[in-house]
């Protein structure tokens, strides 16, 4: 990243943005002084632990509540029989983001691990033992797990309201024009977010006010959702969520254990703490649903796509719908005259899936990039050359111009850094000194660059320092830091002069930390709040006969280092503190909003792009796969903090390796119970899995996404990486991945 990158942008971000500022909450986190939700222990608090259904489909026929109640320390057991009323039907999906949840509304078991009772006790140990003593029994029917287990159905939409079926162009004509077709079928398994911090809540009632310490990715938006279950006004819910130990989408929607804890707190009149055990995270808090994807690519004699059809069967629960919008990954990536992206649903007896880091794009791009690799080989072209021939100059799905797209530069830089040139077309051609098969593969990365809506407030204080406020969520991605940098720039202050308050629902709504749109959205609000302060200050100064800026009329002023300067004559300036003092004001508040210009949103397609290159070394008879190099080059608009952006991109690539080689939620095909519901069995990558991994960014100015030119870096790293690794494995071994993760027996 060039140092002067910030100045290339159309907007003069100040000197704080663009700096690799170390995360401001880092010390608090590593020294343990950062209070995560479960660290709270209010006076008089009790513990709640839920017992989970031991089978995925059936009816709970026995619960030994007497045994649990007899255990010392157990206070109460909540079951469907005595569960207090809720003000909202948990199966109603009263709101778009309110998924159906299992909060003891009846005796049905709809997935393994669904809450069937809640034990309240004076200690965690007693609550755990009480839950064990309940020994729930289920009259079970065979679980439906796997794509063969139920008839596919046609969903009304996929993901959060994305179309289930999109066809552009004439598919028939497209395939008719093809010199050859490539067909690929790929399965991806259920994957579980497994944030390091388990879901936790400390719930307390003060009259009809509900105070919650709970990690949350959409702090203000969640208040009305909690309120609806308890029949209280949204403003009576106070969520405190200063730190999250990872969210990845699983902390964005309300889950059943949280609601049960709130109920228990209301019923007992005591604060209640509930913390999920690791194994309890394999059910009630969402996951990435399994997919079975079929792609058919038509290519002409020159290696150009003539038609691209991508069909994804996506698994969801038996009772609710969240379908991984996997096929939609094919809508915006490559130029093609005819594209069809369609979905079907498959009902399994499993917890309802939800958004998990790059929902849709991760699974869909994995399959698309594998298919593109096969097509390149069929066309006799280098995979990079093939992608360049199918480079989309405009958005293939909508025909709209891209707001910016430096993907060509990503391809160039990534390939150069990796040393892609000279790659043999055929597989199995390269070996290292130890005789391992070497393969190179690549994938294109793509992720939407959305903006939601956010508000922020900035207050300048008499001493010239400021406090800025917005209810943003730092999931570990670094929002505390990057957003503070933007806020400081909006105010023309140094980062150290700005106190950043966040993570609390009493603050202005920062929208959701998700969809890779948080920095863009909350950042825009913060920046404009700062600019609002500056504008008000300027008005004061210009009107003040004693001010060096007096009488400047409507000449431009610039804000920098806590002073306002006359743009045309920088010798005329006044400090913020002086301006406030002369005006006799203790403080000055500005407000800002972050929202995308509707015209730009309408006219432009907005995405981050990238290219990932992978090298693998594969043992020729034992087929152990070593990813020896992983290089990604990404264009994601203005980079606010290169250090944090790099760690987000690397984290995404790490996740991509896990997707390709490790992550797999296994459910017993008969009972539906998780078979590997802990971190010893559910593998994610470890440090030793990486030899060389590198994320580069490419400068990209984007005047349309928002005034800051910011896109997002949170999710894109996964896309591209999965395919790159699978394609490298093929290039080494000649064997194509047909399912993820790639198992050794698939290569033997």
């Amino acid at each position: 990243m060039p140092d002067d990158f910030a100045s290339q942008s159309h907007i003069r971000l100040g000197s704080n943005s663009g700096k690799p500022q170390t995360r401001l909450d880092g010390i608090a986190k590593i020294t343990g002084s950062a209070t995560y939700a479960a660290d709270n222990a209010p006076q008089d608090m009790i513990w709640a632990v839920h017992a989970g259904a031991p089978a995925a489909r059936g009816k709970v026929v026995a619960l030994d509540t007497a045994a649990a109640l007899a255990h010392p320390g157990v206070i109460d057991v909540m079951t469907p029989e005595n569960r207090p009323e809720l003000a909202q039907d948990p199966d109603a999906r009263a709101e778009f983001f309110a998924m159906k949840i299992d909060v003891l509304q009846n005796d049905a078991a709809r997935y393994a691990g669904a809450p069937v009772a809640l034990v309240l006790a004076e200690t965690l140990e007693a609550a755990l033992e009480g839950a064990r003593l309940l020994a729930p029994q289920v009259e079970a029917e065979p679980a439906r797990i796997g794509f063969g287990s139920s008839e596919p159905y046609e969903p009304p939409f996929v993901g959060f309201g994305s179309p289930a079926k999109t066809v552009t162009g004439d598919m028939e004509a497209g395939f008719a024009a093809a010199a050859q077709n490539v067909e690929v079928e790929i399965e991806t398994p259920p994957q579980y977010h497994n944030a390091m911090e388990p879901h936790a809540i400390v719930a307390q009632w003060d009259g009809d006010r509900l105070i919650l310490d709970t990690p949350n990715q959409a702090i203000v938006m969640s208040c009305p959702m909690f309120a609806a279950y308890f029949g209280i006004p949204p403003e009576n819910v106070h969520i405190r969520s200063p730190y999250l130990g990872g969210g990845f989408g699983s902390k964005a929607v309300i889950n059943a254990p949280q609601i049960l804890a709130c109920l228990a707190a209301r019923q007992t009149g005591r604060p209640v703490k509930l913390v999920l055990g690791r194994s309890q995270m394999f059910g009630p808090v969402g996951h990435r649903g399994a997919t079975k994807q079929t792609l058919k690519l038509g290519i002409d004699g020159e290696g150009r796509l003539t038609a691209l059809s991508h069909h994804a069967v996506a698994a969801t629960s038996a009772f609710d719908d969240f379908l991984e919008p996997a096929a939609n990954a094919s809508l915006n990536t490559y130029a093609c005259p005819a594209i069809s992206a369609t979905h079907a649903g498959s009902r399994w007896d499993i917890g309802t899936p939800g958004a998990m880091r790059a929902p849709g794009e991760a699974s869909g791009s994995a399959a698309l990039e594998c298919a593109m690799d096969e097509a390149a080989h069929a066309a006799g072209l280098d995979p990079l050359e093939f992608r360049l021939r199918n480079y989309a100059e405009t958005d293939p799905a909508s025909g709209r111009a891209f707001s910016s797209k430096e993907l060509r530069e990503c391809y160039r830089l990534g390939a150069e850094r990796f040393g892609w040139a000279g790659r043999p077309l055929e597989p199995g051609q390269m070996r290292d000194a130890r005789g391992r098969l070497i393969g190179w593969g690549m994938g294109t990365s793509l992720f939407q660059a959305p903006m939601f809506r956010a508000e922020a407030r900035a207050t300048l204080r008499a001493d010239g320092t400021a406090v800025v406020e917005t209810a943003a969520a730092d999931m570990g991605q670094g929002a505390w830091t990057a957003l503070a940098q933007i806020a400081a720039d909006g105010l023309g202050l140094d980062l150290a002069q700005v106190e950043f308050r966040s993570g609390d629902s009493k603050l202005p709504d920062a929208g959701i930390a998700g969809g890779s749109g948080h920095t863009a959205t909350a950042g825009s609000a913060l920046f404009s709040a700062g600019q609002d302060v500056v504008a008000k200050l300027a008005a004061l100064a210009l009107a003040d006969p004693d001010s060096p800026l007096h009488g400047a009329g409507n000449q431009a002023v610039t804000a920098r280092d806590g002073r306002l300067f006359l743009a045309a004559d920088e010798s005329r300036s006044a400090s913020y503190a002086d301006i406030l003092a002369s005006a006799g004001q203790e403080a000055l508040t500005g407000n800002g909003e972050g929202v995308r210009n509707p015209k730009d949103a309408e006219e432009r397609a907005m995405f981050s792009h990238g290219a990932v290159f992978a090298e693998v070394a594969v043992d020729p008879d034992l087929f152990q796969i070593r990813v020896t190099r992983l290089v990604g080059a990404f264009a994601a608009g203005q980079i606010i903090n290169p250090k944090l952006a790099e760690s987000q991109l690397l984290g995404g690539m790490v996740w991509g390796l896990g997707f390709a080689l490790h992550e797999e939620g296994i459910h017993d095909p008969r009972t539906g119970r998780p078979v590997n519901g802990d971190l010893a069995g559910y593998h994610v990558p470890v440090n030793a899995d990486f030899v060389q991994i590198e994320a580069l960014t490419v400068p990209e100015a984007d005047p349309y996404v928002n005034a800051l030119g910011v896109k997002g870096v949170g999710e894109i790293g996964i896309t591209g990486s999965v395919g790159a690794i699978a394609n490298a494995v093929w290039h080494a071994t000649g064997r194509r991945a047909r399912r993820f993760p790639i198992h050794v027996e698939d290569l033997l």
Partner: protein
Amino acid sequence: MKSFEYLRPETLDEALAALSDPDAASLGGGTNLLDLMKLGVAGPERIVDLARLPGLDRIETLPDGMTRVGALVRNSDLAADPGFAAAFPMVAEALLSGASAQLRNAATVGGNLMQATRCAYFQDPFAACNRRAAGSGCDALGGANRGHAVLGWSPACIAVHPSDFCVPLAALGAEAEIAGPSGTRLVPLAEFHLLPGEEPHRATALEPGEIVLALRLPAAAAGFAGNARYLKLRERTSYAFAVVSAAAALRIEDGTVAAARLALGGVAARPWRCSEAEEALAGKPATAESFAAAASIALSNAAPSGANGYKIVLAERLLARTMAAAAAGTPAEMPALPGSLMDDTGEAAHA
């Protein structure tokens, strides 16, 4: 979790007395026992913490040349002991290929021997499992069993023993020193873990009320130090149990294998000593052909117990590879990734 009584006896006699309660369990580092208690798989009424027992935290050489390792020696300390690692390099390599540094710091020698299978159905109190609840059935049959046994299994149980450490120990003819109410006895490690047969709930040769006091390695085992390797296939580069693993120690004289010590891990309910293969290899030239032939003998009785036939192929190839790696000489230093084929820095892991 369930309430229990916690005792920390100061002498062996006190410990054995405390363990006479059939619902008592010995505690080593707790890295396995506590997990099983939290899962509701183990529910002892009494925990007998062995930590204070005198003399069990030592590595010593007995008058007859045997190496004796006390049951309380930590996995990490044993692997780092220069004398021990020099004499039994593949044991050190196996230890370091297991679990994580934090777990190895806590795990004891006795606990490692006694650790339970990682079969998911054993760990799930709601599943049918003959090993956990005699006669209840075996949900692993017909369930998720990619990782299960290909040797020595029975229709009653197809679980594997998860220890890395025990594999080279079985190969080298180590013995477990066991103390109980009726005195002390020695059991060869290759027979310490029981094959399931009809009674998978009996996992080891330990009788109720007995404890493992120590391990003994014969003096002759050190004679293999120059050509000994432990290699382990796993589903990520570290911090994962073996899919299959192999220990191979060779005594090579003039290019001929004078004696071999071979064992496989991850394939059976016990570390699988490959005696027939050892015999077949003795006197043969130390070549890839001999190793392949011996490996094929080792797996000749293998059969899948589910979706795990691939393990037979892998185990055979890995065993041959491990012999080749051993023949190439024990590395002068412990590889950066012990027991791993993923070591990019080290020497070629195969000839």
